[in-house]
């Protein structure tokens, strides 16, 4: 199953600052909810973990990522990542193409993502809807956290502004029509790399709402 979506967000910082942050896996990856870098292969390659919950289903993907086609002049590049669930329940591969543009508020970052799932996680047809939902929640959360982190890193205090993602579609049999899905009813992610958030303020205050995103529902 493939999910493709586009989203944009602005950061109150210069394109140089955002570029420096976004092209450094050690800084950028932890902004993805539940993601962390376990090993830096080189300047742009890394190994890592992503854990997430879809309702009662808890998955941990182990894999690697590579930044490529980095063009500092036009501030564009892409990230390719793939990984598989430690318990053999499926694999993912993702292609994220990002571009930056200077705007009065600072920097506008736009990201196009192609996410492909395989194995059991991709074979539950009723899950197609939730994969889209989770994927867009993840990206939106990623952009939020990234915006915050860039500011914390560059010491500027300002708030990132989220623009609604403009397109989401799941191709093929799980034939989901494109529709605007302004994420998100949800504040924050649950499985998230603590290191990535230690700088962030009010961590403990966030905890309750964090744990709700993918839910620690236990009854059935």
């Amino acid at each position, binding site marked *: 199953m493939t999910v493709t979506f586009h989203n944009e967000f602005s950061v109150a910082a210069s394109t140089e600052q955002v570029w420096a942050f976004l092209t450094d896996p050690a800084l950028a990856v932890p902004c993805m909810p539940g993601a962390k870098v376990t090993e830096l292969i080189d300047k742009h390659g890394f190994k890592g973990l992503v854990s997430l919950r*879809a*309702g*009662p*289903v*808890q998955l941990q993907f182990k894999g690697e990522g590579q930044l490529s086609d980095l063009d500092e002049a036009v501030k564009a590049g892409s990230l390719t990542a793939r990984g598989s669930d430690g*318990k053999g*329940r499926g694999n993912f591969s993702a292609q994220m193409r990002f571009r930056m543009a200077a705007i009065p508020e600072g920097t506008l970052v736009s990201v196009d993502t192609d996410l492909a799932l395989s194995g*059991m996680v991709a074979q*539950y*047809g*009723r*899950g*197609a*809807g*939730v994969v889209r*939902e*989770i994927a867009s*929640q993840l990206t939106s959360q990623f952009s939020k956290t990234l915006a915050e982190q860039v500011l914390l890193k560059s010491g500027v205090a300002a708030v990132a502004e989220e623009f609604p993602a403009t397109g989401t579609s*799941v191709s093929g*049999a*799980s*034939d*989901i*029509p494109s*529709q605007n*899905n302004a994420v998100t*009813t*949800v504040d924050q992610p649950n499985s998230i790399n603590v290191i990535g958030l230690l700088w962030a303020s009010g961590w403990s205050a966030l905890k*309750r709402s964090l*744990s*709700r*995103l*993918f*839910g*620690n*529902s*236990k*009854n*059935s």
Partner: protein
Amino acid sequence: MKPSSFKYHNPQIRSEVLALLREQENCKVLAGGQSLGPMLNFRFVMPDHLIDLNRVTDLDGISISDSKVRLGAMTRQKSIERDESLRRLCPIFSESLQWVGHYATRNRGTIGGSLSHLDPAAELPGICLLYDATLRVENASGHRLVPANEWSVSFMTPNLEADELLTDVEFSPWTMPHGHAFVEFSRRHGDFAIAGVGCLLALDRSGLIKRIALSVIGVSSTPFRLTGTENDLIGYKPDDNALAYIHQAIDGIEASSDAQTSGQYRKRIARVLASRALEQASERAISAMQ
């Protein structure tokens, strides 16, 4: 399709359950197991600890007292379906349960399980919404009360912490004469609802809407109540205009699509079901007043 291994716990009392939930990581609570069982066999869910509620003595039971109904989380769907006094007070429960799974699964399935698993197509969460039920959630250090409309967080994700347990559901049946309807559409009997609409409706003498509750299941990632719409309908006739208004609300829903069914179709069906529900509820509301 065999479950992965886990440590099995079958506590006898509630406090043991809460203690386990506090102490152990990656727990899963087993109620009726009619949804969790398959997920364990598919290994979608692989808990380290399985906490079986089936031997806990004080989680089960239907109690009806001074205009309050209390359903213990472990009350079986079969018991709710067949309880005579509940059927008199809230016939919509047994009516909607005709759509829940099958004869054999209702023997095991529980209301607490349905609410906590929170499948978007599940019927009982939609019914609890209609009655503005209050859900009691406990952990080892206390409890909190969650209003039904704050229960659903996102897809199959209730407002429940890792260390918390849903213990019971409480609500007040409508006392004024009223009508009810629960209509659902699925591909086959007992299948996941493509859409379902529940309606409680009270009319005044002149046939105007005095009170109305509408909930929709199956259409989006969580069940929901058309609260805003309901308020606007008070004082109007349950006629085509009212319906057009309800349809408008349904058109605004962000519906989920999956491999089988598009969100557009779900909404289309929900519109049809809303019409049928309102019609049936009105008829019943009128005869209830005679």
